[in-house]
């Protein structure tokens, strides 16, 4: 028994540290948090610029080349501003809500394959986790608005909650579509399956459409920007937030945009696949940029719905369509 426990221990430790460092880097820098932040800022720029061009104007232009640094300038400016917590607010929730709003989409992004066909964290059922995370985001929104004790915020948060009732179920239903096709509840598997077979958009176009509409609602984009309708209730649930908290809210929103485009890409557009010699990450970026542009095009060409119209529309049209998609898949079409 001449085992040198100390040496083994050292060896194991060394290996562990190396592994930890690598995974720390993967989580914090690439393709983790830092990369995702950059991506979030980039997509906000893509969204604003594209939206502005659709309106026949330039959009951000003088901040960096073509205004590409604009979201970063906004972010740092907000960080440097005074951070006001209104007296009447529920302090703890008011402080925590922005942190959650920012952390939720970030963590959720870890289950989406970006670098290759497997994600940073992948497990059977992570699709369910994503659906759950979307719900949590809206609950955070609700709490954020509720905690600020401002009439506009309160109305905004109630609208957010009501709106969620509308799109939650069709979205959940339709997200199961790709899972059934791929025979797995893991996003990485779904991506893998698509690279072996077809892009799911070809098989489930209906699902794709319903999903996109639901994402617009989740992102609170026009025509579903009801919870923060500027002309009705100022800035809705975000009215009272300022400084750092607002910066986090905006970053959280941008991350949500990344998440949304990444989900469209992963579930319907084949995700990050290798194509000839082009590395998957590039393919992924191209596809997500396209998804972002699609979302901003949609938000440019609609007027806002009223909340009752939105709800009844969701129940009357979107839900049956989502159900129809699932039935079609069960019948063997689109699976």
């Amino acid at each position, binding site marked *: 028994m001449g085992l040198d426990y100390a040496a083994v221990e050292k060896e194991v430790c060394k290996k562990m540290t190396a592994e930890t460092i690598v995974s720390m880097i993967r989580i914090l820098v690439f393709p983790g948090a830092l990369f995702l932040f950059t991506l979030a800022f980039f997509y906000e720029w893509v969204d604003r610029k594209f939206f502005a061009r659709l309106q026949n104007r*330039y*959009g951000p*232009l003088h901040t960096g080349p073509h205004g590409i640094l604009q979201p970063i300038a*906004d972010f740092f400016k907000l960080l*440097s501003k005074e951070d006001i917590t209104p007296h009447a607010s529920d302090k703890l929730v008011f402080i925590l809500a922005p942190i959650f709003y920012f952390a939720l989409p970030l963590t959720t992004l870890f289950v989406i394959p970006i670098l290759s066909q497997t994600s940073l964290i992948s497990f059977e059922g992570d699709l369910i986790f994503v659906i759950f995370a979307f719900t949590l985001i809206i609950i955070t929104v609700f709490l954020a608005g509720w905690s600020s004790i401002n009439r506009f915020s309160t109305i905004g948060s109630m609208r957010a909650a009501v709106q969620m009732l509308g799109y939650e179920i069709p979205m959940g239903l339709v997200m199961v579509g790709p899972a059934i096709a791929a025979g797995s509840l893991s996003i990485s598997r779904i991506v893998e399956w698509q690279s072996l077979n077809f892009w799911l958009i070809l098989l489930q176009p209906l699902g794709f459409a319903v999903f996109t509409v639901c994402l617009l609602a989740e992102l609170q984009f026009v025509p579903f920007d009801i919870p923060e309708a500027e002309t009705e209730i*100022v800035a809705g649930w975000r*009215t009272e937030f300022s400084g750092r908290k607002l910066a986090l809210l905006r970053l959280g929103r941008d991350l949500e945009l990344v998440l949304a485009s990444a989900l469209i890409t992963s579930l319907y557009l084949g995700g990050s696949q290798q194509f000839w010699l082009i590395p998957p990450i590039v393919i992924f970026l191209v596809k997500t940029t396209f998804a972002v542009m699609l979302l901003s095009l949609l938000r440019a060409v609609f007027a806002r719905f009223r909340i009752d119209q939105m709800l009844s529309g969701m129940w009357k049209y979107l839900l049956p369509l989502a159900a129809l998609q699932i039935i079609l898949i069960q019948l063997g079409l689109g699976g």
Partner: protein
Amino acid sequence: MNLFKWARTKSPWIIHFNTGGCNGCDIELTAALTPRFDLERFGILLEGSPRHADVLVVTGPVTLQVKDRLVRIYEQMPEPKHVIATGTCAISGAPFKECYNVHGGIDIVLPVDAYVPGCPPKPEAIIDGISKLIQKIKKE
């Protein structure tokens, strides 16, 4: 110039408040946001909530009943904040000088950082005013 200062000059969000003017200045400010002039080029966004804004753009002369509201909006804005008086009314109240309820320019209630004369100022003049203010922030 440090990062934060750079960020501040590149992203001045404005909130607009009419203290009792004739709408002339208001529509010119709105026109400055539309495609012909597109203030978003400079990173300027029009915000609805004073909590989100950096620059308070005031149009119109100060009337009695609006005075307190103006101050309240200003107080709700997070530091650092700036005020631009847009239009002759907001500077001095002169077009309505014989009106008993007009107190004069907004500088009797708020510290003003930049004045933009004109009745109403052209959108170009408003942009000019904002960019002069940005230069001033840079030098601070």
